[in-house]
């Protein structure tokens, strides 16, 4: 009796596994690939027909000619899109204090920001995913001077470029104003005629 019941349970488990673990995800995959294939495959962006990343994922920008993104704890170098992670540092962590200190100092040097001018918190604090594609508009405006002098483009032109890339709150009340750094940098390259 007991044995028979276990066999029945095993059969049910296998059938339900097929339904929820194979039919369901494959059906969704099929529908997704048919209806929304671009999104289903990672919303890739292309440069000269070669995939150069995803519009949803941040990339490492360290050179002076590009807008920089947020600090990232994904992978050793940051922005490892096969190893998403946050810093998991708590508010009273000495490690966080040190990281903030060095991030702030670096930005003040690179972008010639006066000591009295506060730095936006998104620009020095690590994101949750380590792959945050966005920064705040304030963090982008902070970099105008550097980008302008490195690229030899007028500051006003850069400012306009930034403003035109602000994504406002979705439907007016969801999230916060933000700028996709990869999209901004690609537009910057186009502006510079590169």
């Amino acid at each position: 009796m007991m044995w028979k019941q276990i066999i029945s349970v095993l059969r049910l488990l296998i059938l339900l596994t097929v339904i929820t673990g194979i039919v369901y995800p494959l059906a969704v995959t099929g529908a997704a690939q048919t209806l929304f294939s671009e999104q289903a495959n990672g919303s890739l962006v292309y440069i000269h027909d070669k995939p150069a990343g995803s519009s949803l994922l941040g990339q490492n920008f360290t050179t002076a000619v590009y807008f920089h993104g947020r600090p990232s704890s994904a992978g050793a170098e940051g922005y490892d899109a096969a190893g998403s992670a946050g810093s998991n540092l708590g508010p009273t962590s000495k490690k966080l204090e040190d990281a903030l200190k060095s991030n702030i100092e670096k930005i003040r040097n690179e972008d010639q920001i006066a000591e009295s001018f506060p730095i936006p918190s998104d620009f020095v604090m690590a994101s949750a995913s380590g792959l945050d594609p966005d920064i705040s508009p304030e963090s982008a405006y902070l970099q105008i001077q550097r980008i302008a002098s490195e690229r030899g483009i007028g500051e006003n032109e850069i400012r306009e470029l930034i403003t035109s890339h602000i994504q406002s709150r979705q439907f007016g009340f969801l999230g916060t104003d933000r700028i996709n750094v990869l999209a901004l940098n690609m537009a910057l390259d186009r502006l510079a005629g590169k």
Partner: protein
Amino acid sequence: MITDVLLFIIFFVLLLLMAWPLGKYMAKVYSGERTMLDTIFLPIERTLYRLTGIDAAQEMDWRQYAGGLLIFNIVGLAAVMVIQELQPILPWNPEGMASVPWDLAFNTAASFMTNTNWQAYSGETTMSYFTQMTALTVQNFFSAATGMAAAVALVRGLVRKNTKHIGNFWSDMVRSIIWILLPLSIVVSMVFVQQGVIQNLSPYMTVDTLEGGRQTIAMGPAASQEAIKLLGTNGGGYFNANSAHPFENPTPFTNLVQALSIFLIPSAMVFMFGNMVKDRRQGYAIMAAMLLLFSVSLGGLYASELYGNPIAEHMGVSEPANMEGKDMRFGINGSALFAAVTTAASCGAVNTMHDSLTPLGGMITMLQMMLGEVVIGGVGAGLYGMMMFVLLTVFVVGLMVGRSPEYLGKKIEAKEMKMAIIAILIPAVTVLFGSAVSVTADAGLAGINNVGPHGLSEILYAFASGAGNNGSAFAGLSANTLYYNLMTAAAMLIGRFGVIIPVLVIAGSLAKKRVSSPGPGTFPTTGPLFVLLLAGIVVMVGALTFLPALSLGPIIEHLLMLQGVTF
């Protein structure tokens, strides 16, 4: 600030608008009444029973019901372990993931089977597509259905009279999957894909980045798992960063849909309860108590995050300094809402690294789990957990007015009270005992990432999350060690079945009783007085149990943070 509050209000309105009709529908599904979707689902259900030889029409007493539930879960646990061990020779493994070490595999299996979805592993570096789909996605459905079945059995115990039967586990479980979880998951996963959640079986992709570096992008069938992860209040992320990962939660809109998906079924179950007991006000009263507690949590969490970290502000970061562990697109409102929702509902998905929340914000997430996951709560688990507090409330009221307590016409006697107290105390004891052992054992202390009071918070959180079957983490804790894998697995199993079994005992015991009609001395369980008493009892039990531990962790950390102390 005003738009933030607007978001919260819209969230509540949308939730109630969707949960109310769903609750009505669910009451029909479990009562075997006709629904619109029967033409599609009835043939599937019949085929399942024909192929397996299971008799789903046979009524069960509580022992048979619990037996079926346990066998199903134990076999499921074994299956998840076996698939993880065999993933190198199974299909859909383009990245060549190796067998998962046994302790991690056991932890993961216990975690997904108990609807906890604590993740000591990192998805994109550990699990093959086959494992994600056939082991993890599957248990997301099974564990949710198990919780829903147990709650329905308890409601039947309240509704029925003079019988020992509380329904059929197989029927309740299968109907939960086919009629409720699966159709909702299909709709929600397509919304996710449209917004940018990935859904493919491609190998990981390496690209040359704009700056000339290289970036390897993880791929996989994420959307299908994402939908059930939220709807089933499971919470196990496809990727390590969970719902913070842009491929899991790409836009502010998906963030709202995710938060709604988490609360949808647990809220609907409360309305379902009102429908099944033929007095909807009973459901409204419980919903009101839950939403009252939740509003306080959400408000507190949001205020604390808005206040931010004064230590960073002193260093020259503009106010509010609060973006550590948060992604830009969600904003403070979307991050606070998600953190409050996921810990209220025993979901455990995160779009924010809870370890990096402000001390008081982090404490609120922890406290919601410690209250027993009854503020909305998990699918099924929230309703049956709250019912234990309802019994406690009518008992306390009965003591105060000197009348034998009753609920919905059923006398609440010693047996029910014993079981209710066991169900309330077992998770609490597990949290405190597990934390106490861990802060005295070297193996426990070795895992801490943040030292000082925050280190205690990390350990407390781990056990609150495990015993409450939440699954979120102060993820700085290195939880993938033999010690923590076994300890948290034990906490999850005790926290799950240490509640479900007493609940089913109560269901069986209540079903046997006769129903007496309300007299002049009957305490009404629909008015605002009852709502306040119920919420008060929940808070009081939680506060009395956990205040000492919380004082040593987040509360003291908050005070030290104000003084600028770091560790």
